[in-house]
């Protein structure tokens, strides 16, 4: 016997999984808040060194990609498979733009000798070192999630092409979209905490 596809069950499972993702980052947010309490001045100084323009650009890119993910779901629900697939590709494309931007940002920092355990960084005040340790850890983990999200969206694209996700059975695409929104949401918290904090 095969189980009927349980729409509510699948959604519930995904939401639970998203909770676990939030808690995974939650541990890091706790570390961030404790450390920032300890070194408010150093955090301010270190934050000034980040490129707000690049950060803002990435925020816009990621929010737009989230919009495309949502449009992909709506398109599929309305039975427009072709448009749904285009929106998924656009989402993946913008995710790639985000990573490229991130690569340039990290690259510039590393070029200036600001990277974990670098001789340059270890000469700085402790609070600034802590800021960059958290910066690399949290944006790095987020970056890994962006890559995972791209893989997930690519997989969903493949499933739609194979006819495994249809306008009638679209919960997998919806769940992939939810995951992508989470990746977006975490960035929306990371951006002010690192770039705009004063």
């Amino acid at each position: 016997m095969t189980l009927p596809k349980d729409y509510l069950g699948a959604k519930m499972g995904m939401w639970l999984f998203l909770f676990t993702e939030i808690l995974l980052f939650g541990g890091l947010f706790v570390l961030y808040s404790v450390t920032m309490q300890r070194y408010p001045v150093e955090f301010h100084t270190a934050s000034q060194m980040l490129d707000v323009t690049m950060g803002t650009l990435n925020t816009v890119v990621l929010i737009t990609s989230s919009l495309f993910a949502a449009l992909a779901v709506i398109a599929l629900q309305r039975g427009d498979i072709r448009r749904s697939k285009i929106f998924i590709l656009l989402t993946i494309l913008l995710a790639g733009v985000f990573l490229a931007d991130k690569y340039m940002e990290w690259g510039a920092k590393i070029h200036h000798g600001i990277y974990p355990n670098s001789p340059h960084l270890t000469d700085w005040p402790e609070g600034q070192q802590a800021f960059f340790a958290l910066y690399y850890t949290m944006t790095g983990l987020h970056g890994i999630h962006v890559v995972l999200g791209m893989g997930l969206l690519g997989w969903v694209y493949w499933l739609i092409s194979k006819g495994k996700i249809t306008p009638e059975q679209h919960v997998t695409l919806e769940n992939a979209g939810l995951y992508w929104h989470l990746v977006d949401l975490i960035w929306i918290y990371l951006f002010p905490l690192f770039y705009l904090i004063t």
Partner: protein
Amino acid sequence: MTVAPADKGFFAPTGKGFLRSWLFTHDHKRIGMLYLWCILSFFGVGVVLGLLARLEMLTPGATIMGPQTYNAIFTLHGVTMVFLVVIPSIPAAFGNIFLPLQLGAEDVAFPRLNMFSWWLYIIGAAIALTSLFTGGGAPDTGWTFYVPFSAVTTTNVSVAVLGVFILGFSSILTGLNFIVTIHRLRAPGLTWTRLPLFAWGLYATAWIQVLATPILGITALLIVVERVMGMGIFDPAKGGDPILYQHLFWIYSHPAVYIMIVPAMGVISDIIPVFARKNIFGYKTIVGSSLAIAFAGSLVWAHHMFVSGMSDTAVMIFSFLTFVVAVPSAVKVFNWTSTLYKGAIRPEPPLIFALGFIFLFSMGGITGLVLGSAGTDMHVHDTYFVVGHFHYVIFGGTGFGMFAAMHYWFPKITGRMYNKTIATTSAIILIIGMNGLYFPMYLLGLQGMPRRYYDYLPQFTNLQVASTVGSWVTLIGLVLMFSNLARGWKHGQKVGDNPWEAATLEWTLPSPPPTNNFDQEPVVTHGPYDFKHLSPGGTDQ
């Protein structure tokens, strides 16, 4: 009874080839059996490591190994037992086999995800075990992986914590699966207040697994980046703080002890009414206490850190909360004993193990209050008292819960019965052995013997010897119990579908249950411990 292929139930060949039909099965019963075999194998490894550590402590100084080996042995004992045995034990093995059966469901909500969980478990276990033989040698940090030592030791900590990360992921997915299963797949008529208490225990546990385990994941990852990249988040020289590691670690690892114990409490709650032939006393308070433990247990982590230098206010708050979490545990013990009161008690082996659980768990629980109270904790912190407490709760509690489950559901899984006299004897030997093994640890701790020390003063010798002898008695009990079960599986007398005359849904199925569980979706009309509705003498006997 004839030995037709149908009698093999879900063990019957599926026509896909033996290995493939097991390793890539989506059948929750087969996955549960895979977990059971793996868990019992790792349990054997953990027992041997524990026995070796005890043997080393027989005399002061070197007995059979050097200090570095001893450090590695107790670390491996801890990592194996905690992450490979106790955390998955009851939920992954018996939960997988019996939760869908108790719910009247065909399978768990996400059968493929369930298989994936098992694979993650195996991969995580393989990676954790790889750390023993590669790199700079077996980890020597203790299972807690405390920084700064875990960040600087040359032993293979990175690989071990990576294994722990993957094992955590497996645990999360199992919990997630169970929550959705319980919400979505209950049979018609199986309302929340008719849910067997084992299912309730799994439900409360699953929430802890889902909510607490991610913190372990991030903690493990942080150790890896600390070691590989020198990130410095826990390094004071780089603006980090090692105490934050302890907070993060215990935010998971204290709730984790409830992941270990709550399913065992569910097993006991299912067993006691069956052998007292009475409805459970205070069904709703047991349910409430499971949920209360899951909730309050998430708020007590810092009682592991009373001597870490945190503020007195924090110490007071966490001490208070620790006492709060003792209340729901005690509620359960009172409910179990009240269920037995004026019951028509049948002293069958599962009940003996359940009683052993209550006794040993109470021994561990009450000494937990000594540790939860900040004043007395200062004296016994990081001594053998803690080791004794933990083992009474986890080996005496979860371990006995697991043994009770094995003896209770054995006839359902195998269709046969073990030798009851030997089973009862082994239970009694185990209770004696465990007290011999762990009670001296309380005394050693009170006298000031620190845990994890390789050497000790001559004045501790008598108690150390007593404890080591206790470990041998425990071993005898374990060997007797497992050989009896193994013999029962091969040669035991065939029994019917419901030898214990229990009223939960799994006992309405043939033993072993068929691959497709229920031919027709069952309709539940009564509570899980309502024995009046059973046909006389149970069904099919």
